[in-house]
């Protein structure tokens, strides 16, 4: 999967997994050498114009660079919210793709959509080119001088200075900040998390004496109860949790066990839509439910109960299920309410989960901020002489916007390190733009005992400077940050390992692996808690608002990333917008339909989306939208709901609201209009009980259809390779990371909101989502659909020019140059996976002046992200999934040059590589031992619309629901054979 490297100092450095060897750069000289190649290209880059016209050949080729062959560098992605260990694919000096680092125990090679898309922020055209003073371009010399003067002045006057940042998990950065504070002792470091878990942290502090997030082990749990915690989509470390979660969800003929997942929630989340059972509550019922659950369990195990009013719903079954799995269960709650979290801790304690499914070893460190600290800071903000905003944008993502804005305007020294203009950087005095993370060194400590590095993969494109360098400069420390990291590692990490015989080797290895994981086996802390003091909030009957984090936009930091904006929401399939999700019940009651604009609590207008499975009296709205200062893709997209978060005490992500109907209609850009499977045999599913009895359960039709597979002409026999793909519907959570990865890998154009509305989106793969059963609490089922590479492809037959045809390896291929765009193939495709270039999206048309590029993707800078191994498609041609044929060719060629057979698993398609759920497996069907062949032997395997005899080479494995002996109520999509 990655570039094979000869290590730089000639020592053969072996990896744990031999086949994965990663690039490291040894020292400063090597570092410079590494980037020497980049000088020419980045020089051109920064000048933007004439970019492609002045490619200069190497005089002396750097040894690690072969034109058109990609190098992979390890790095880390952390946006102040979520962490991911990554590999950066650098081709001819340009980072063009991010893959997960499979040495990381956190993500095991997977990434989420935000990480995938983050590569584009490197080439964000709105980035600050230079430091700015009062909005005017400046230079570092001037700006440093002014800032140092002011800092000194503040120091003399004992004026308070604040560094505001999200949780910082970089040990070296922390050290730099500490050094800075040493120099300016009046400085305070205030952290806040836009999406806060303060309640959880403080509850843990109270229960265990440790203010950290424990290490949840979803793979160890037989029963998982998620309470408003979208742990597969957004909560804390979703990639990690997904990886764990699917381990107990992927059944096979040899392992017919799977966990039971019950989700208690208000809005339909990605996690909830994957649950075996969903219990719908209004946010105000949450505490009551948790307390009653606690009481039920406490009662059974003979512990003391707490005072709570009667539960609003039946919890007996839930309680019994949990009790049956003592020590093998896991209850997680996403609330920021400390009391609730205390009770949840109590439940987990009663269930003896600590030390088993929850551990304080390798605790998660990505969120540590304290809401009260920030609230306090805001209260006293006027007493500060200076504020430094480090990697944060509180003017947007902290509810007290007005106060902050006024304060910043009045403060003498306000600094933002933001690399791109945002609401905060727009009003500060000094903008000291930081590097993009792909341009800078850094280290991270995302979990206790886990250290990772990020290394620059490209010379800084603009005149920017990493934040740490700024701090060092202002503190008067003449040391490079890189050296600080190295020193820090030597003392803090190297000393605790015995991985290499000297530090340099250790350092090389660290860079090569990108991650160092230390053994840690400190004992679990003791639980001590008194819940009796907690007063349980009574459920309310008014309309409530539930504010949640969306899977792709997150806190809103990446709102200017068109790739993320165009990714459909995993549940609603809406792009480019947030919306007020209302229940079908409310829709009827208030006669609102999707697209009707309502006014929330008299302050904000937002269109409605009727969301099956939504709590009846709750409206859910996603954060991260409504940015007012951002590039074109982020600005004024959707509505900002940060202001509705209450901040007295812990941030409250739910609140009472009123709504008011307007006459305005605002069409949402949705990629899927129809939610029902119409009783069709599209996604086959069964229940675990039935599966245990018979692995072909739910898939009886497969055999039946195979029996009738007759043909008027011989099926083609593929000698050599026959590529195929297996998609495990039981594993797929629908997170859309694959869609993001596919689009990035294959240069899929961005079409923008208006075009999505017109059903012109271009994604090569999509995740179909269907609802079944009761609209108030439906079952959700998903299916990733890409080109099925049919053996009897209906599309190929009808292309008049033969532009789409079949390769000798079973791939349905497109010759873009040949295509004349009749769209006949698309009409004839039963899966509708073909996409047509409606306009000239990438300046490749023969005619002039007809560019359609609403989000500036063809500007010189964003264009740098294009994958040169994949043709950009001209206006008027059809495109579609190619099974990442460029990757197949690359690996085939490599195997050939190394004179060996291609290994199974060597070729990974972009979607497969990024999938956190291991749902996609690609390989050679002719190799009987390949993983994909083994999966094809599973009795769960079927093909989409196989009765049409299109002979797809994409196979699906049936979905298995863990429904406990209940009669299946989804007759709607259970086909009788």
């Amino acid at each position, binding site marked *: 999967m990655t570039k094979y490297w000869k290590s730089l100092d000639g020592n053969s450095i072996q990896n744990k997994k031999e086949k994965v060897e990663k690039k490291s750069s040894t020292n400063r000289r090597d570092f410079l050498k590494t980037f020497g190649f980049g000088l020419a290209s980045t020089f051109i880059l920064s000048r933007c114009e004439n970019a492609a016209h002045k490619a200069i050949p190497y005089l002396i080729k750097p040894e690690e660079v072969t034109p058109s062959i990609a190098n992979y560098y390890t790095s880390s992605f952390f946006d102040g919210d979520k962490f991911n260990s990554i590999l950066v694919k650098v081709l001819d000096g340009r980072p063009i793709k991010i893959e997960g680092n499979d040495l990381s125990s956190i993500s095991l090679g997977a990434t989420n959509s935000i990480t995938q898309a983050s590569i584009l922020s490197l080439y964000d055209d709105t980035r600050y080119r230079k430091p700015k003073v009062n909005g005017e371009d400046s230079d570092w010399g001037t700006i440093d001088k002014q800032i140092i003067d002011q800092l000194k002045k503040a120091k003399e006057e004992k004026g308070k200075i604040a560094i505001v940042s999200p949780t910082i998990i970089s040990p070296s950065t922390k050290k730099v900040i500490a050094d800075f504070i040493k120099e300016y002792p009046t400085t305070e470091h205030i952290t806040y998390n836009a999406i806060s878990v303060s309640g959880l942290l403080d509850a843990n502090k109270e229960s265990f004496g440790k203010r950290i997030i424990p290490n949840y082990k979803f793979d160890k749990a037989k029963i998982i109860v998620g309470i408003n915690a979208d742990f597969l989509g957004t909560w804390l470390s979703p990639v990690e949790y997904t990886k764990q979660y699917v381990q107990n969800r992927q059944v096979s003929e040899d392992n017919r066990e799977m966990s039971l997942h019950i989700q208690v929630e208000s809005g339909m989340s990605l996690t909830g839509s994957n649950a075996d059972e969903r219990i719908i509550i209004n946010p105000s019922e949450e505490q009551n439910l948790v307390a009653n659950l606690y009481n039920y369990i406490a009662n059974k195990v003979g512990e003391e109960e707490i005072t709570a009013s009667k539960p609003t719903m039946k919890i007996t079954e839930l309680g019994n299920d949990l009790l049956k799995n003592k020590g093998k269960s896991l209850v997680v709650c996403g609330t920021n309410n400390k009391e609730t979290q205390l009770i949840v801790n109590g439940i987990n304690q009663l269930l003896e989960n600590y030390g088993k499914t929850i551990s304080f070893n390798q605790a998660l460190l990505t969120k540590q901020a304290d809401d009260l600290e920030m609230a306090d800071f805001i209260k006293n903000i006027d007493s500060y002489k200076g504020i430094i905003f480090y990697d944060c944008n509180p003017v947007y993502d902290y509810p007290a916007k007005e106060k902050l804005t006024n304060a910043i305007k009045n403060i003498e020294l306000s600094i933002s390190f933001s690399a791109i203009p945002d609401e905060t950087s727009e009003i500060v005095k000094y903008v000291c733009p930081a590097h993009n993370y792909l341009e800078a060194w850094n280290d991270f400590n995302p979990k206790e005992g886990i250290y990772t590095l990020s290394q620059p993969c490209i010379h800084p494109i603009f005149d920017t400077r990493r934040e740490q360098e700024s701090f060092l400069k202002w503190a008067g420390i003449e040391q490079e940050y890189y050296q600080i990291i190295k020193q820090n590692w030597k003392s803090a990490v190297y000393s605790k390992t015995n991985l290499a015989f000297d530090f340099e080797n250790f350092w090389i290895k660290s860079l090569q692996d990108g991650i160092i994981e230390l053994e840690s086996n400190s004992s679990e802390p003791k639980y001590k808690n008194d819940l009796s003091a907690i007063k349980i909030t009574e459920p309310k009957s008014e309309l409530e608002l539930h504010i949640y984090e969306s899977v792709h936009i997150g806190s809103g930091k990446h709102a200017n990333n068109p790739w993320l904006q165009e990714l459909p929401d995993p549940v609603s399939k809406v792009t480019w917008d947030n919306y007020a999700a209302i229940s079908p019940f409310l829709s009827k009651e208030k006669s609102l339909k999707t697209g009707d604009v309502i006014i929330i609590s008299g302050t904000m207008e937002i269109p409605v989306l009727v969301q099956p499975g939504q709590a009846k009296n709750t409206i859910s709205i996603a954060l991260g939208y409504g940015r007012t200062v951002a590039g074109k893709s982020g600005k004024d997209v959707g509505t900002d709901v940060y202001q509705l978060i209450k901040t007295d005490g812990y941030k409250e992500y739910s609140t009472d609201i009123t709504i008011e109907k307007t006459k305005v209609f605002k069409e949402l850009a949705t990629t899927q209009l129809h939610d029902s499977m119409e009783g*069709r045999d599209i996604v086959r599913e069964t229940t675990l009980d039935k599966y245990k009895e018979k692995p072909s359960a739910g898939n009886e039709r497969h055999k039946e259809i195979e029996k009738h597979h007759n043909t008027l002409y011989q099926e083609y026999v593929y000698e050599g390779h026959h590529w195929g793909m297996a998609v495990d519907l039981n594993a797929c959570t629908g997170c859309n990371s694959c869609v993001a990865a596919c689009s990035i890998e294959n240069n899929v154009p961005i079409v923008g909101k208006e075009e999505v509305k017109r059903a012109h989106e271009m994604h090569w793969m999509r995740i179909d989502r269907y609802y079944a059963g009761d609209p108030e609490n439906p079952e959700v089922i998903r*299916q990733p659909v890409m080109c099925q590479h049919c053996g009897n492809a209906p599309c190929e037959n009808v292309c008049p*020019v033969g532009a789409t045809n079949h390769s000798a390896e079973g791939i349905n291929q497109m010759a873009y140059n040949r295509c004349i*765009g009749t*769209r006949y193939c*698309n009409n004839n495709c*039963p899966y*509708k996976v073909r996409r047509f270039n409606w306009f000239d999206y990438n300046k490749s048309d023969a005619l002039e002046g007809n560019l*359609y590029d609403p989000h500036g993707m063809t500007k010189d800078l964003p264009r740098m992200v294009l994958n040169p191994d994949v043709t950009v498609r001209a206006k008027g041609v*059809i495109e579609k999934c190619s099974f990442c044929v460029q990757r197949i060719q690359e690996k085939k060629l490599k195997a050939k040059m190394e004179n060996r057979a291609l290994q199974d698993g060597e070729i990974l398609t972009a979607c497969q590589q990024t999938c956190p759920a291991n749902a996609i497996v690609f390989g050679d069907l002719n190799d009987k031992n390949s993983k994909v062949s083994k999966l094809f032997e599973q009795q769960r395997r079927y093909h989409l619309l196989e009765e049409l005899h299109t002979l797809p080479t994409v196979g699906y494995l049936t979905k298995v629901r863990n429904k406990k002996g209940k009669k299946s109520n989804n007759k709607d999509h259970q086909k009788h054979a």
Partner: protein
Amino acid sequence: MSDISTREELIQGNKDLKTITDDVFNPIVAKPNKFWFAGLLLAASAALIGVISIVLTVWKGIGIWGVNKTIGWGWGITNFVWWVGIGHAGTFISAILLLFRQKWRTSINRSAEAMTIFAVICAGLFPLIHMGRLLLGFFILPYPNTRDVWVNFNSPLLWDVFAITTYLLVSLVFWYVGLIPDLGTVRDRMKTKFKKAFYRLLSFGWTGSAKHWQRFEIVSFTLAGLAAPLVLSVHTIVSFDFATSVIPGWHTTIFPPYFVAGAIFSGFAMVLTLMIVARKTMNLQDYITINHIELMNKIIILTGSIVGIAYLTELFIAWYSGVEYELFAFVNRATGPYWWAYWIMMTCNVVSPQLFWFKKLRRSIWFTFLMSIVINVGMWFERFVIIVTSLHRDYLPSSWEMYKPTIIEVLIFVGTLGIFFTLFLLFVRFFPVIAMAEVKTTIKNK
């Protein structure tokens, strides 16, 4: 030729050879009236708007149409099939009716054939402009090239290229062969020098020699024999565009004959529309008599009923097949979001032609004119229903979409109407609209 007393004279007004020539010749030399100029202006303007819209489409991209990821073909191909369908009547009249010795065709075949050619020209435009890369449209021709790639002979769209081209060329030749003697007549009667030279050029040196006539007849008859299966093949192949696919509502074996019947149905409706106007404005009531109209109406009942039976057959087999997708496709047509299009189609094509069972209505000019419009509307909707409702909800509900045309698509359609009428108006002005020589053979007074 002995008298066959039981048959009525085909044309009225007790014409002799001379008066027939006069009647056909005079409009060519007479100064056209205001209506003609107004019509031409209107049609040409519409054509211009159409051309502008086409240029815009080619320049900007198909994205300015309403088609989308699910419905790849919308108005464009609907119009294509509609125009091709209309383009069937002329050749049907001149070829098949010639083979069946239906002499009444002589009054209308000339203009019907002209209409055919113009309609096919309009039709041929659509497959071209609906291409995403029109400028590379020549890829569709099998010409030797350095890349050694040919075309895909499996593709019905490619068959279309051959079928439409062949049909256009053969119809043109057939039409022109029939025109030559009449152009000779025009030439010989023309007084002004320039015009005479013009028609001399067009008339290919026709003299009226017995040998020429003998060959003329045999060539006409052979061409009719060739054109008859050709006319069937064209709409058959157009139907293959749909029927070869696997899309429910498209893939059904009855399509070939049913499309042909539908084509003739709509073609006759268009012939009626034009003839009813032409006979009135050009004083051709004696040639295009109420009997002609009645006979055409009978063909309309016949073909309309065939179409109706085909609809019902499709419906029944959709149920009988037991294939849920098939059944759904038809239920969706009738009750889905495009139900209105389906019921317009049903009303116009199946129900309303049945009114022609009443002789009184069959012989009413006004009613016939109204019906001819209704049928053309209905047949347009038939194609719309087939294309759009089948595509918009096919196999995977996740991809279900709606289709709405944009103004550009509408204007292109209007543009082709403009092109059609422009050509037709020019035709009636410069060419003999009635096949004089053939009509002369049918009269008894010679």
